[in-house]
């Protein structure tokens, strides 16, 4: 029986939504192909996530518990993933395409001798593993295929919908020992500077309010923040808005930043440069607010408003508050 394995990153005591999306799709493939569905969790206290995986129908959970896995650092994560890979012997390993996964995917493929299909927007298993990848700053789709086995696939957030299985499972739990001496580390983590504590995480958010070059001062930033708060949304930004110094770089959405696909994406003062669109074109509903009627963002927007954000956002806030008060 072949094994399909999913890497399940966690955040604040829960598997991330992006991980559960991938797991849901892999479950569908595993049930169809009669394969074993395995998941792995890397965390100093990995046991506590087993419960959250049961509704998703996993047959096996691999746990790697080590203090070095408390914060992301590529060497221990790589060693842990390779250890799980050797224990599970999967034909396919799927991972959500986060920065932490991008940090190790190539090295993991080289270490375990796997083919790698990174940052895909769809994949399937047939005679070979096939995947669709947006390339050239998401201007075109490449149909790709792995010509060897095993295969690693990293999947863009929002590609699939997370859904529990029809019936939960009682998975076999396999603990994989990690032989890792932190004293041998040649790359060490000094500190992590977080810019967005307490706010909704971008890659996990249902609604995103994103600021662009048109947001040019503190007052504009406050309007964006107020709208995000009112909608329970995460805040994102284009490269231009980050370069203007108004938003931290961790909020960047685009080819080089985060790739997001929320249910609702509100682009405020964003022109829609291809590098930015590459990171958000998968959003279900896109609202664009921009002064320039020719801004390319209007070509992909579900609803567009040509207007000054400094005038539109206060009206929008007022309307949303009115609706909320009514319901």
């Amino acid at each position, binding site marked *: 029986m072949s094994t399909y394995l999913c890497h399940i990153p966690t955040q604040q005591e829960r598997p991330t939504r992006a991980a559960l999306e991938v797991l849901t799709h892999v479950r569908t493939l595993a049930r169809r192909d009669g394969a074993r569905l395995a998941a792995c969790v890397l965390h100093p206290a990995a046991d506590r996530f087993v419960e959250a995986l049961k509704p998703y129908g996993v047959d096996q959970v691999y746990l790697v518990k080590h203090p070095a896995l408390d*914060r*992301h650092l*590529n*060497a221990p994560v790589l060693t842990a993933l390779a250890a799980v890979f050797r224990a599970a012997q999967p034909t396919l390993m799927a991972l959500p395409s986060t*920065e*932490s996964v991008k*940090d*190790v*995917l*190539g*090295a993991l493929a*080289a*270490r375990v001798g*796997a*083919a*790698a299909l*990174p*940052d895909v927007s769809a994949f399937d298993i047939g005679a070979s593993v096939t995947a669709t*990848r*947006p*390339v*050239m700053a998401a201007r*075109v789709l490449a*149909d*790709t*295929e*792995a*010509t*060897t086995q095993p295969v690693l696939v990293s999947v863009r957030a929002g590609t699939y919908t997370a859904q529990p299985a029809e019936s939960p499972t009682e998975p076999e739990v396999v603990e994989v020992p990690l032989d890792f001496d932190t004293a041998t*580390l*040649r*790359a*060490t983590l*000094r500190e*992590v*500077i977080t*810019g967005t504590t307490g706010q909704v995480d971008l*890659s996990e958010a249902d609604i995103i309010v994103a600021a662009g070059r048109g947001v040019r001062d503190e007052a504009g930033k406050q309007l964006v923040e107020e709208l995000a708060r009112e909608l329970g949304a995460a805040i994102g930004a284009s490269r231009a808005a980050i370069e203007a110094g108004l938003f*931290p*770089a961790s909020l*960047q959405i685009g080819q*080089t930043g985060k790739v997001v696909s929320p249910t609702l994406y509100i682009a405020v003062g964003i022109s829609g440069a*291809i590098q930015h669109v590459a990171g958000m*074109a998968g959003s279900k*509903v*896109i*609202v664009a607010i921009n002064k320039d009627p020719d801004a390319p963002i209007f070509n*992909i927007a*579900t*609803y*567009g*408003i*040509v*207007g000054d954000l400094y*005038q*539109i956002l206060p*009206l929008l806030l007022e*309307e*949303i508050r009115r*609706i909320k008060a009514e319901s």
Partner: protein
Amino acid sequence: MNICVCIKQVPDIQAPFRIVDGRLQFDVERYVLNAYDASAVEGALQLVEQHGGTVEVVAIGPASVSETIRKALAMGAERAYHIEADPSDWDSATVATVLAAFFRDRSYDAIFTGKQAQDTDAGLTGTMLAELLGLPYVSNAVGLAYENGRLIVTRQGDAGREIIELALPGLVTISNDMNDPRIPSIRGIMQARRKPIEALTLSDLGLSPEQLRPRTRVTGYRPIPPRASGRKLEGEPAEVVRELVRLLREEARVL
């Protein structure tokens, strides 16, 4: 500090193209230095300008790649290696294998790569190369400093900016958010003409066709399916906003 930067020549992703029978066809064949690699060259030059040392570059490709190599030399790299090959059917694993063979008998304090290539957006080669060479690495670097024989690398991670101390020799993959690459000066361009480019073949590197077999391939290209055409709401601002909220609730059902 001696740094070697791996550079790639890529099609200009802004250039107009068509898809004919599943293949990409550019109206004008225009090739450029991968923007992420340009940032890697810039990052290396800045370090060496502050702390001494040399910057060299290595590229793989047909003869036409020399144009891109000259660009890096004009920016300030001192010498270049051109691995002559046709990599059009290669994947990241093949490229990393070739680069690993190149680096095996050479000694640098640091190897830099762009964090991904603009055409494939795969982002695998750098960390594959580090693994093949057994080097510690940091990916997606947005800041670089040199302290007491170590690189202090800032990387953009999921939770924020991670400050990492990297022992040397090590490898760093660099984001275009690190810097704005310099535009070569006329003097730089003139000097680049006299800088050495050493040509190497795959057999010079002791590579057999067996080792070059890719693990993945592109079977074809397709246009991105167009989004259903949207609606521009026009009129008096307060009315337009009211209509937007109504559409979001009743038509799109997302509020």
